[in-house]
């Protein structure tokens, strides 16, 4: 079109390939896939810089030693800060989160975590403290830790706590080791730990790691621990029972006093999996129910955001008789000196964390508890339970509810009828729920419910949101009855990718990017 002879139109080779500035993978602008950051890499490009330094140079070979010195540093991407920022921003835009909308994942308590708690952790006085600093340099931190222990003891009705465990499962193992230590101190070796058949998978896995054998306790028709079966199972080889109450069906174990009596009469201990504590804050306390050991998932109940999979924190609180076994060192206030010090309990099982636990996560929970206070926490439970109860009532006539107990903060519906009627499985309902603008509930857990959908609205969702979820579920079921399930089975349609082939992933493992994956590479097979 210009009068000139057309210039060379094929670009120089080195300019071709994935580009860091192309945004088709960001759902606001397209439905493409995002290149690997390694595909955006160009030799010699960089984001890094380091300050000027007048420290004398060293000769690496002599400083490190030829036998230790690498020929080349590890393979890492070479990208500009601009491309890095764009890549990671686009990746983030391909991810749903609580800050987008409701996330009623049962058992996970995906509630809104106040921004206040984020801000608290950025205070340099907390963030910049080294874990091995002498205690007089970290009195503020220690005060916070002791304060949090006190709060958690108040909430659970226990006597003392350790903040070391990094997550719920770590808390479980800590609890089981406490159990073991307690029995040992009494000169006995018990080999079995009881777990209800509805328990979370971490419970049995932790039992094994704690060196015990798992014995399953069946649920009865109510969805609760079968008390008779429990009585039969308890003998003097049982170290304890792990229970979550409300249990993973969202039901309160009404017979908890009887259960506790059965165990305690046999010299066994009662362990409380606190993943469901959100339901009972200020209503009933594990300690008052007879539990000896409690772990708490601060990333469920106490405002540690889940971070795409962590970090969390899983403190363990215990009754007085177990306190001497807690991991050390623990922060303690020494009334004499008026200072906080580290101290290790006399019969401590030992450390369960490299330092003092996930401290910055603990600071979030401390801030959250301060913001709520005792009455506020009770209100959390009230709204969490009411939201679930309401939603379940709204769905009574469209799903199966194998158990008839009133639900607490979550409930488990079954899509069994839907499956037999329209070939729509729990998975299809979940995927179709995405297109309604919500994250799906937990699927296929607990294992004792067929085609389980475990729904936990949480207290931070407004009544309107809960109602909107009800309408969405009802629409899905109605639509399946109309179209034989076609829409549900092909859902989701609104996401950056469609249903993902999980089987292929496990069959042919591709667990890291290799240069063969580069589309510019002749051996590469993908688009």
């Amino acid at each position: 079109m210009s009068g000139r002879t057309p210039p060379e139109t094929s670009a120089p080779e080195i300019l071709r390939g994935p580009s860091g500035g192309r945004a088709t993978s960001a759902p606001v602008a397209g439905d493409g896939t995002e290149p690997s950051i390694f595909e955006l890499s160009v030799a010699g490009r960089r984001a890094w810089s380091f300050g000027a330094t007048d420290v004398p140079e060293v000769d690496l070979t002599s400083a490190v030693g030829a036998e230790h010195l690498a020929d080349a540093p590890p393979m890492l991407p070479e990208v500009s800060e601009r491309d890095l920022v764009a890549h990671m921003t686009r990746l983030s835009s391909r991810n749903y989160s609580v800050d987008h909308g409701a996330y009623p994942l049962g058992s996970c308590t995906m509630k809104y975590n106040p921004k206040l708690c984020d801000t608290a952790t950025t205070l340099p006085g907390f963030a910049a403290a080294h874990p091995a600093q002498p205690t007089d340099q970290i009195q503020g931190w220690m005060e916070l830790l002791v304060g949090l222990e006190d709060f958690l003891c108040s909430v659970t009705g226990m006597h003392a706590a350790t903040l070391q465990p990094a997550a719920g499962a770590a808390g479980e193992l800590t609890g089981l080791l406490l159990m073991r230590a307690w029995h040992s101190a009494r000169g006995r070796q018990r080999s079995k730990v009881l777990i209800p058949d509805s328990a979370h998978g971490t419970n049995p896995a932790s039992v094994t790691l704690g060196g015990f054998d798992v014995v399953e306790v069946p649920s009865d028709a109510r969805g609760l621990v079968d008390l008779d079966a429990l009585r039969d199972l308890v003998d003097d080889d049982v170290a304890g029972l792990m229970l979550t109450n409300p249990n993973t069906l969202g039901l309160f174990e009404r017979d908890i006093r009887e259960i506790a009596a059965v165990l305690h009469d046999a010299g066994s201990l009662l362990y409380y999996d606190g993943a469901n504590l959100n339901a009972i804050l200020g209503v009933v306390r594990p300690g008052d129910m007879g539990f000896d050991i409690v772990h708490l998932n601060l990333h469920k109940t106490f405002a540690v955001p889940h971070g795409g999979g962590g970090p969390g924190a899983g403190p363990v609180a215990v009754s007085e008789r177990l306190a001497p076994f807690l991991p050390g060192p623990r922060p303690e206030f020494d009334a004499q000196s008026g200072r906080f010090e580290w101290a290790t309990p006399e019969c401590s099982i030992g450390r369960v964390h490299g330092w003092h636990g996930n401290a910055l996560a603990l600071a979030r929970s401390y801030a959250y508890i301060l913001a709520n206070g005792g009455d506020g926490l009770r209100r959390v439970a009230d709204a969490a339970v009411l939201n679930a109860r309401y939603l379940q009532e709204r769905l009574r006539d469209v799903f199966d509810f194998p158990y008839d107990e009133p639900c607490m903060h979550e409930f488990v519906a079954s899509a069994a009828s839907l499956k037999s009627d329209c070939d729509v499985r729990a998975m299809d309902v979940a995927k179709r729920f995405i297109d309604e603008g919500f994250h799906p509930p937990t699927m296929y857990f607990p294992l004792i419910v067929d085609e389980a959908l475990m729904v936990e609205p949480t207290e931070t969702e407004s009544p309107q949101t809960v109602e909107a979820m009800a309408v969405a579920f009802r629409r899905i079921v109605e639509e399946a009855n109309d179209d034989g399930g076609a829409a549900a089975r092909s859902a989701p349609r609104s996401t950056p990718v469609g249903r993902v082939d999980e089987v292929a992933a496990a069959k042919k493992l591709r667990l890291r990017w290799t240069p063969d994956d580069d589309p510019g590479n002749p051996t590469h097979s993908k688009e």
Partner: protein
Amino acid sequence: MMSPGAVAQTCDHRAANGEGEHRVGHYVPHTDDELSAMLAFCGLESLDDLYAHIPDAVRLVGGLDMVDGLAETDVMARLRAMAGRNSAAAEDLVSFAGFGAYDHELPTAVPALMMRSEFVTSYTPYQPELSQGVLQALFEYQTMVASLFGLEIANASLYDGASAAVEGLNLAAAATKRTTVWVSEGIHPNVREVIRTLTGPRLDVRIAPVLNGITAWPDDLEEPAALLVGYPNALGCLEDVPAAAQVAHDAGALLVAYADPVAAGVLRSVGSQGADVAVGEGQPFGTPLGLGGPYLGLFACRQASWVRRWLPGRLVGETVDNQDRRSYVLTLSTREQHIRRETASSNVCTNQTLIAVAAAIHLSWLGPDGLRELATRCVRGAHYARKQLFRIPGVEPSVSSRTLYEFPLRLERPVPDVLDRLAEEGYLGGVDLTPDYPDLGNTMLVAVTETRTRDQIDGFSAALEKALA
């Protein structure tokens, strides 16, 4: 939902907590009218009725005996005051403390990206269609960690270095069907203690002593499942990894290396030196000191038959969606607790995803040259610091083995006293090793990162001289 008259209405909870500043259960959105409507729908009369089926005997009477809730601004004020009661290493003092936790510079892009709410407020990516962002970031993280350690497979994070070490030994025990593990005394004492605590019921943990900073593996290892060696070890010394690999493999054991990922910028990878499994502490990449957590457990291993069955932790795999587009998904979940329950390879569920994402961002910011430069600067600073410090009367090396950017000093006085005096001069002098390595005498471990300037090193050496005078 707004109606014109709405603005004139008063909030029901207005007076609930004193002068209207703060409402009980502040983050609960429900108004009293809504609560009533929902209760009525459920056939209930009061909130208390929600719990009618809970036996009275266990019901809490009188509510939680705790603080009253505070408004946001009051919470912040309290926390600011508490934070002010710390003299934080990387803020108020010039720090030479390391021992597994280091104050490296954090590029501004790292928090800006990792704090995006899509990363912070999402769950574990169980629903891949809504989670491609986290999944792909973890896939890239796995690639980088595998590369750092010169191994083929890395998982998507464990809690911290200590728990990664535990998982490494558990894996070795399962893979070899043996129960004895040998842990070098050069492994951080806290890590050793965590290993003892967590594997105690199942494994027989033996300690191999260090001599002059280097592990002396005993001759008779008694059917070991694994050897665990640090590189550099907790004393800062460079162990002989190929030799350890030889010992391990000769005994039919796996070599698990506890490797420093910053040092990986200059050191030969532990994988290339014979380690079967590498574990380590990822804190230097993307996360502040934070009194020791949340940190990041790095875990990598070679491709082997035991991977599919025994690899601990989450794994992200590449696959395709129903339109054949490259996609990512959690994979090999058949190893995990939610499928395999009591026979699972590990109990880990919640892990450290956000920190892993931060590490991937930080490592991408560095790239190979930046990582090398980072490591080189640490080495350079330590080199200079060693020169300055060992000139001081009353200071001598605790070991003569080769160290990298952290090294133990033997002092003429007890270390706690020296640390107190240094703090008065504005320095966090290092970490007292005396309780954990009494054989070394009054030993202080000094680490020098790229953040330390020549002036600071000079100032520190002057202060130490004064403290010892």
